[in-house]
């Protein structure tokens, strides 16, 4: 990963590049949620299901933290996107409660 170009796209949903992720880490983002809030990586349609592990690896390499410390990121229902109508309808969705 070290020889990859800063222009390499890591989060395809939100078009976040490796360079942007490296910069955010250098500003102090050492967790997936903070990286998401600073760069939008993982905020798009797939909610980080595609890029999450990759982003965690980038954080791990740059900060020396272990992958176990970094994963998993917070996820919130719905797990697959659904329409507003489906949600406002009659009990079609039963999201898990998080604490």
């Amino acid at each position, binding site marked *: 990963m070290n020889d990859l170009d800063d222009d390499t796209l890591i989060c395809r949903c939100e078009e976040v590049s490796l360079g942007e992720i490296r910069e955010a880490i250098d500003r102090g983002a050492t967790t997936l949620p903070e990286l998401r809030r600073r760069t939008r990586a993982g905020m798009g349609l797939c909610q980080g299901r595609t890029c999450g592990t990759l982003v965690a690896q980038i954080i791990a390499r740059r900060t020396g933290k272990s992958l176990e410390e970094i994963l998993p990121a917070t996820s919130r229902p719905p797990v697959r*996107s659904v329409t507003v109508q489906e949600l*406002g309808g009659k009990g079609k969705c039963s999201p898990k409660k998080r604490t």
Partner: protein
Amino acid sequence: MLPEKADVVIIGGGVIGASIAYHLAQRGVTPVLIERWGICSATSASCDGFVFMQSKRPGIHLELAMESARRFATLEAELGRSFEYEACGGMIVIEGEDEVPAMETYVQEQRNIGLEVTLLTGAEARRREPALSQGIVGATWSPRDCQVNPMLLTFGLIDRARELGARICTEREVTAIERGGSAWFVETQGGEIRTPFVVNAAGPFAPAIGRMAGIDIPITPRRGQLLVTETLPPLIGSIFLSARYIAAKFDPDLATEAGEGISIEQTASGSLILGSTREFVGYDTGVTAEGIGTIAARTAGVIPRLEEVHIIRSFAGLRPYTASGLPFLGFVDGLEGFIMAAGHEGDGIALAPATGHLMAQLITTGRTDIPLDSFALNP
């Protein structure tokens, strides 16, 4: 590592703590900010980006908001960073004829204090915002309402504060606060700091900090659940609240009667943020099927096009609620050097620039541009 002493210790790395840190650093005072988790990791990361003037109670509350709005207009240039500030204007949509008289009075009071706001008919509102439902009977409109990205705002303030010399310590919890001689001693797991000024900017967690200093702070966490949609081309131009939200905000009895009111914004990314519930459930930040369903049904009632739009995420945040609807700001009687800056409920983002400015002014000069009497905590 924590330094042994500091000019000021700020507890809380949300938008309020970040704004105070920046405004102090700008005046040449370098604070130490202590945050239990990460910067912008709780309330400020789980809210909408409204800088709504119209939702503030006419009087000192609105005055404070208008001071904030003036500061927002130049803050991106000051920080040298974008936080997606949009002078987009805002609407309060009226869904029932019975809400019109109350909104007429509300608009008149706001105009009296100098806020530019007009009452539109349903047709006029739809001309401005064609996505609005035919069922909307009217709306108030103000070009003064605006929108920001709360996370980029908080990080922008923190990053700039750090560049100006502020020390930002994250993943460090305050365990005790003690008065010794003419100083405060703030204890954390990683060491103790001596300081003349402690600022409690812990939002919904401010009461726990207060207990360490021996005072009772009447702030209650109020949960707001929100939904995020897929990105869309521009669907709405302004930010929306419902008149029922205004009613619910100022009269909890009405909230039960009239339902919870809604908030809708489209962010710079194209996603819409749909909100919000207003629940007293302690410190539980979970989302519920009922809350999600209510928001989906209510927002689609205002913008019918939303029915076909996909929701990609839900989240909930805790707002620091106070009975008066006003934050606690300033010194606390009997606790020299202890400063409150918490209890903004859903207005923390909107009021952050004014709060940061006033607290920095209070600490460095002992005086403030806006009198803080109405915001005093009298334990």
